[in-house]
């Protein structure tokens, strides 16, 4: 039906007909999901109050100056104290931070943030922290490959690439729990891996297997620590010995704060940080990568995306995803691509491209012939993402994979999911036909009806000849059964 008043409604003029259809096509044109998400990654940076009037400039200038003075004061003050502790004659500088009551928040080398709980003791040995007593929670920005961050506790090493986690020491007992990313626990003496922990998992020394316990959820809001409790990066390397006093009761809640309030963490669940200007600069690099791709310089594009992926924020997140896309689509390296997307999932478990990464992994595994692995991923996706817009697509893939295995029952269940999800028409058609074909193959009485229903719904559908053949076969089989009776 077309109610466009211009061009003329007569079908006799091919030019009018052409314009009508073309204008309707143009009105339905739109970006795909990935383009939209990529766009959001580029403009998602924290919204700051936009410029309004001239007086706002003046007020802003005054406020900025005041803020700078305040921040400068706070930055200089703890540093001066630390310097005094270091140079004070006759006073050895213990490479140790000790918290009697309350909490202490430190920034270590490489931007690692450490939140020391009440009565905890942390010592720095060869640049790496060692927890002597109490609980310390860490937030580790993404690290380059082969440069993991290591935390020691008793006879154990916790090896991290970029994550949020906590280490607790109570006498000889060591506990590790993970909020985000993946960490490995190793025995320091022989470097034997004892456990590999994912978000929500915890490990205690003396236990054989990995235990799943309730680690604090990463998204619940918590008040940030007062600025005075945060040391500057320069003051961080742990030659501080001043005990910090505070409220013991608040210590546990505040100890979780670090894991919950990474600076710049904003909408979309990604590790957003930095300023809008940085994003725009990073987006310049993204544009350069896209230009390199369209110019055929795949290696250059890959290098740019890999470099961007080491940063933080939505642009880095997007780049981490694009690395896999380039490897898969331009360099024909499906294994590398799957590894890159899996890496993306580790770094951004709740990232805005998470569903895309899941779907890309599944599709690539299917194309690479790894049907079992693809099915595992697909089932995992369907279990974890009941509301995903890509659910129908994945259920259809799972159905096809089960059908290829000859497992019609599971295929029917998967196609049923497709029909129950909000979905594009072509996917529904495929699911409808294959579900009907599976029912026929199983000898289910509903099979013939399902095939007829398919033919009624899609009279010029792409499986009409196969469906017609199924109806004929079904009729012959029914005749045979009737004669036998």
């Amino acid at each position: 039906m077309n109610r466009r008043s211009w061009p003329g409604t007569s079908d006799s003029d091919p030019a009018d007909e052409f314009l009508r259809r073309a204008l309707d096509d143009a009105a339905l044109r739109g970006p795909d999901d990935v383009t939209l998400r990529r766009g959001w990654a580029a403009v998602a940076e924290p919204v700051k109050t936009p410029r309004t009037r001239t007086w706002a400039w003046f007020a802003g200038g005054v406020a900025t100056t005041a803020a700078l003075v305040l921040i400068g004061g706070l930055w200089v003050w703890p540093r001066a104290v630390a310097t005094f502790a270091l140079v004070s004659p006759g006073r050895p500088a213990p490479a140790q931070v000790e918290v009697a009551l309350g909490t202490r928040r430190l920034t270590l080398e490489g931007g690692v943030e450490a939140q020391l709980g009440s009565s905890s003791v942390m010592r720095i040995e060869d640049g790496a922290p060692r927890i002597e007593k109490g609980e310390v929670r860490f937030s580790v920005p993404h690290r380059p490959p082969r440069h993991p961050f290591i935390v020691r506790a008793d006879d154990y090493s916790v090896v991290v690439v970029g994550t949020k986690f906590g280490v607790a020491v109570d006498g000889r007992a060591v506990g590790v729990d993970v909020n985000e990313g993946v960490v490995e626990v190793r025995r320091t003496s022989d470097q034997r891996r004892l456990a590999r922990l994912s978000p929500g998992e915890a490990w205690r020394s003396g236990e054989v297997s990995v235990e799943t316990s309730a680690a604090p959820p990463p998204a619940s809001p918590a008040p940030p620590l007062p600025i005075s409790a945060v040391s500057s990066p320069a003051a961080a390397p742990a030659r501080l010995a001043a005990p910090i006093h505070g409220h013991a009761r608040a210590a546990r809640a505040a100890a979780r704060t670090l894991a919950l309030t990474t600076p710049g963490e904003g909408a979309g669940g990604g590790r957003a940080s930095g300023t809008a200007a940085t994003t725009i600069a990073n987006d310049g690099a993204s544009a350069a990568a896209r230009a390199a791709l369209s110019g055929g310089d795949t290696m250059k594009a890959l290098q740019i995306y890999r470099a961007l992926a080491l940063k933080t924020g939505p642009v880095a997140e997007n780049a981490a995803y694009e690395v896999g896309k380039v490897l898969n689509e331009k360099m024909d390296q499906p294994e590398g691509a799957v590894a890159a997307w899996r890496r993306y999932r580790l770094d951004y478990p709740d990232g805005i491209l998470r569903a895309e990464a899941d779907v890309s992994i599944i599709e690539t595994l299917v194309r690479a012939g790894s049907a079992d692995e693809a099915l595992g991923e697909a089932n995992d996706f369907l279990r974890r993402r009941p509301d995903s817009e890509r659910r129908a697509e994945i259920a259809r893939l799972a159905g096809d994979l089960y059908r290829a295995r000859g497992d019609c029952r599971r295929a029917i269940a998967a196609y049923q999911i497709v029909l129950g999800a909000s979905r594009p028409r072509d996917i529904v058609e495929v699911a409808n036909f294959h579900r009907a074909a599976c029912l026929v193959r199983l000898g289910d009485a509903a099979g013939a009806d399902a095939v007829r229903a398919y033919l009624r719904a899609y009279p010029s559908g792409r499986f009409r000849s196969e469906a017609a053949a199924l109806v004929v076969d079904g009729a012959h089989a029914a005749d045979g059964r009737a004669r036998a009776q």
Partner: protein
Amino acid sequence: MREGPVNTPALLRAVPVTASPSADMEIVTRCRRGDTQSWRTLYDRFAPVVYRFLSAFGVPMEDREDACQEVFVAVYRSLGRFRGEARLSTWIYRIAARHASRTARRRRVRGLLSTLLVREPPPPPAPDPSERSERLQVLDELISKLSPKKKLVLVLFEIEGVPIEEVAKIAGCPENTAWSRLHYARAELTAMARKRVR
């Protein structure tokens, strides 16, 4: 379905995202306060619209994504200047139209420089699945031959479904002028289509 005057454009297509002026002002106010969720809402509502408008306005596929992002950066930077006198969609269309013209100018300069420097033009990008229709390619080509003023009015009215009073506001001209431009744009487009489709 919407009823309207004789010149009502197609009804079987995306119509512009409309909301009450108070709702528009509310979302802008929240964005100004730094509410990221509202900014996301605004992006989700208007990104497809801006992308579609830029496509119809003749921004080539390889520049479209960047142009769309630039429009949103401009929208964000100008939020402080939105007074709620026009609809939010009208205001965003105006920014998008300005950007589309600027992109076209930049492209012309780039083309000229490439010619002067005798540089190899970059290979065309892989076709976008949404661009598969040959009809769309021909339409884009025909629309690109219209003058910018006629193009703007035609795209807004016939493709975006923007009412003519809003089109006039976006184009910065009186309503009668908008009608007149639309009339001539339609006539030119029909003539070109007749030559092309025989």
